[in-house]
Structure formats: C-alpha cells, structure tokens
C-alpha cells in the first residue's frame, strides 16, 4: 500500500483480514495504581477498532502501551504475528505504528508541510553524510517523499495552509494536520487519541469522513479512542469498552450498546 497510489486509485472493496495486533492479559501499574488490569483484545487488519470508556478507564494508557510510551508489567503484545519485546517508542514507529495525540502534539514552529514531512521520517534512509552534501541521493529522496506529502495534503484538503506555521492554525485544522503527519508514515496501524475532542459538530463530521476515507482508500487499520458515543457507533467495526482499567465489553457497536455492564458504566449505576 502506498498513499500515493491509493489516492488516485478507485476505492477498493473494504476487506477485514486476520489479526494484526493482539494484546494478551495486559496489566499496567503506576506505583500502587493499576491503570490497566488483565485486558486482552485484538485488532484485525483493515478494521476501525474503537476503545471507549468513561474518564480514567485506561483508554489513553492502552494507546500508550501500544505505541510504547508505557511498558506493561504483565502481558504480551503480538504485532504482525510476532511477539513484541520491550521496545522504545521510536522503534515502534519504525515498525509501522503511527499516532495522534489527545492534546495536539504538533511541531508548533514548523509549517504544515514540514510537520507532515517529519511524518515521513521512517521512510527516509539516507544518512547524515548524504544529507549534508544535499545534492544527489538525499535530494532525490527528499523530492520523492515530498510528492507523497503533497498527495496527503490534497487528500486532507489543506493546500491553503501548506506554508503556515501550525501554531497559528485553528484547532480543527491542527487536528487535521496531525492526522496528516501520522498518515505520512503510511502506517500499518494508525492510533487516534480522541480525534474529535473539542470539535464542533461540523468539524466532527469532517473528521469522521476523513477517518472513514483513510480506512477505505488506503486500507489502513485504525484504533481510536473517542468520547462521543454517537460518532464511535457510526464509524467503528468493533468496540472494546473499558471501565476502571478492566474490560467490560467487546464486540460490534450493536452488541456493545445492549451490553448491560456497558450501560451501567455509562449511566453510572452503583456497583
């Protein structure tokens, strides 16, 4: 899959494949606090997988475990058929896992274009020697990657702000640029941490459409956290529900919606 090719090609049939990532009995503690307790679930190739739950349920912690910011004390993580040892986050990015952040984490001083170019980091192999020479291999590599980035900019309809420092952009556009940076890595697995948090209805609709388009056109597997239940139920294939660091539900949106434990957690029934 290349983003460049996929943008031009007609949208292929959506196809959900085998297991891409499997979390087995993950437990994560911070000192005496257990953020995640014995949670298992899997993510299949090509699907949109949502992780939902009330505040403090352990959703963000789970995402941080997947991309290596946190290392679980117990449990196994399997990615693309192999067990993953403790890895540092930048190495995990090189394996093909990209993410966005709940509180936008863009490179504020850089332009939209440079931010998304930075997303191509894992695809650029020339060493510092060639980069310092600039002419030759490094220059060709730069242009080739630049083309991919331009395609992503077109796809996300942010041509008008290519050269604008992202710190000056409105919130909704910053979120979109951040999605662009993650997409630029052409990830095998894309993690979105509350992609619609703090957005108005119109911005939410735009973002939902982009998420669906990314999934359909590039076939990218997406795992997302979201607070807005309506949005989650609309766009995701399967939903895992967390509460107080435990898994209380897992299945299609319809299954989850009728699950009594989930209803309790969301309506605040006393335990």
């Amino acid at each position: 899959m290349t983003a460049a090719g996929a943008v031009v090609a007609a949208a292929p049939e959506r196809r959900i494949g085998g297991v891409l990532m499997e979390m087995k009995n993950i437990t994560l503690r911070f000192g005496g606090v257990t953020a995640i307790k014995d949670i298992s679930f899997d993510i299949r190739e090509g699907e949109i997988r949502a992780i939902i739950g009330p505040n403090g349920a352990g959703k963000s912690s789970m995402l941080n475990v997947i991309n290596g910011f946190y290392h679980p004390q117990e449990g196994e993580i399997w990615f693309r058929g192999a067990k993953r040892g403790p890895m540092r986050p930048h190495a995990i990015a090189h394996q093909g896992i990209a993410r966005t952040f709940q509180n936008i984490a863009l490179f504020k001083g850089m332009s939209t274009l440079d931010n998304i170019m930075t997303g191509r980091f894992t695809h650029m192999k020339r060493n510092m020697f060639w980069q310092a020479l600039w002419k030759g291999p490094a220059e060709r590599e730069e242009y080739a990657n630049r083309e991919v980035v331009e395609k992503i900019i077109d796809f996300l309809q942010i041509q008008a702000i290519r050269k604008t420092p992202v710190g000056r952009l409105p919130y909704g556009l910053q979120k979109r640029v951040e999605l662009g940076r993650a997409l630029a890595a052409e990830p095998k697995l894309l993690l979105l941490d509350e992609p619609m948090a703090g957005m108005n209805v119109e911005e939410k609709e735009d973002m939902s459409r982009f998420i669906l388009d990314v999934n359909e056109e590039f076939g990218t597997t997406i795992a997302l956290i979201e607070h807005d239940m309506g949005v989650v139920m609309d766009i995701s294939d399967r939903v895992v529900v967390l509460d107080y660091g435990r898994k209380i539900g897992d299945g299609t949106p319809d299954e989850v919606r009728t699950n009594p434990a989930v209803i309790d957690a969301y309506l605040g029934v006393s335990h």
Partner: protein
Amino acid sequence: MPVAALNLVEVILNGLMVGVLYALVALGFVLIFKASGIFNYAQGVMALFAALTLVGLQSGQIPFAHLINAALGTDLHYFGWTLPAVVAIVLTAGVMVLLAIAVERFLLRHLVNQEPIILFMATIGLAYFLEGLGDLMWGADVRAVEIGLPQGGSLWFEELTQGWAPADSGYWGMYIDKLDVVATVIAGLLVVGLTLFSQYTKTGRALRAVADDHQAALSVGISLRAIWVITWSIAGIVALVAGAMWGAKSGVQFSLSLIALKALPVLILGGFTSIPGAIVGGLIIGVGEKLFEFTIGPMIGGATENWFAYVLALVFLMFRPQGLFGERIIERV
C-alpha cells in the same frame, strides 16, 4: 571623511568582529538548549578542551604523558611528529563526536525527564570533569594555535582607509585584525550551513521536531538519543571553531573556558532558542561594548568592556526577558 568619523567606523568594525566570536560561543549554547532544554554550562570548557586537543594532536603530544610518566617512571612527552593542520582539525572533530556520544551514554541517558536545574548541575560537573581531563591529557601549559590562521593587522586595509581621510590629517588608516576577518567568514559559513541543514534535510527537521515536542518526535520514529548525540556533536564542533579562534587570538590557556561567561549576556539579548538571535546578540554586545568604551569609557576611567555586556543584559531583562528572538521566558533555565 573627517578623522573622527573614520575612528568611529573602525570601532564599529572591530566591535562587529569581536561580536562574531561571542556569537560563536553563544551558538553552541543555543543548539543544545533548543534540542534538550539543557543550559550547557560546559560549553566554554568544551571550547577549551577542543583547542587543547587540536594543539596537542597537531604538535604530536602524547596524551596523558604526565600520568604515564608518573606511573611508569618514563620520560615521554612527544611522539616526534607533527600533523598537518587539516588532519588535526578532522581528528579533533572526531574527538568531539566521541565526547558527545560519551555525554549521552553516561550523563543524559540517566537524567531523562529530570528538572532543568538538575541537568544544569550535571553540566557544571561535566565542565569540571572536562577541565581536569584536558589538563591530564595535554598538560597545563599555555599553547599557541598554529593552524595557518593569519595574524596581525591588515596592511592593505590600513592603506586603503588612509586615503579616505583628508591628506594633511596624518591619519594612519584603520586597524583590522586578519584573524577576526577569517573568524567572521568561518562563523558566517557555519551559521548559513547549519540553517540550511536544519531547514532542508531530514535530520534538520528531526532536530527542530525534538526542540518542539519530545513525545510527538518519538511517535514519528525519531530517536531522542540519536538526536542528542547529533546536537552535542554539532555543539562540540562549534566549540572547536570557537576554541581555535579564541586560542589563536589569545593562546590556549585555561582561562579560555571563561568565554562561556561572555556568552551569557549574548544569550539574554538574542534569546536562548534562536540561532539568528545568538548572532545578532553577539554583534550587539561586540559593537556595544566597543562603542561604549570609545565614547563613554574615557569619562569614567575606562575598562568598561569587563562589565558593559552584563549591564546591557540586565537592562534588557527588564524590558524583554525572552530576548530578541527567543520563544520562551528564560525562567525555564
């Protein structure tokens, strides 16, 4: 042009050239502060260490000769060969890269996510360690840098400017140190090169990315450790240039490490996070202190160059604490 005006021009020119040398030292600080938020107290000692290594390698001095002699009862001092300047410079640059790797491995890696003040204290420790290491490796003698840099004033410029004054004024022409001109050109090339590198290459973008947001940088696959080694290497090479220039000007001696203190007011003016700021700040301090000495100095007994920069920085702090180009308030130090 009247003689008085020519004198003023000469003072400004000399100020600009001194300013470039200040800027060179400040540049090393900015590079490291941007990438890791560390105020590297050891930057001045790095310049000293680089200069000592350069001179030692070039003259074929045996490293740790005193230690070896004391331990084995030998009387070794020199290998008996001298290296061409270019080879010595490249080797010294290599030593500075090794130093960067060692700093990352033994210092930074263990202090990730610590308070800035703790990192600052660590660099004070590093400064004294490096000073001792320099002494132990190369001895404490004052040495001259002989890498083919021109010395003395430019006769050509003196004669040229002599013609600008009225013929009967007895004007001698302007004095411009040739070494200062070379330093200016090299510093200029260094800044242009660094700017281009950081704007148009993948590693340059990675450097800026790390300066902006560590977590986001990690998430796109940038290794913080690799970036730290790269920034400390670049800062080390900048220190080498600064050390060689200052060393050629006033000899390689341990007081060289004190030029770090002159970089502080430069940073306060230019901002701790701005490369252009370091340059402009250096030039303002250089010109400012020369002009002040030239105009006000005679009235208040001279020797104003020792303190002018600090007072200027103090005044500046009251009005623009983040510096001319700085992003953050320097309280973070």
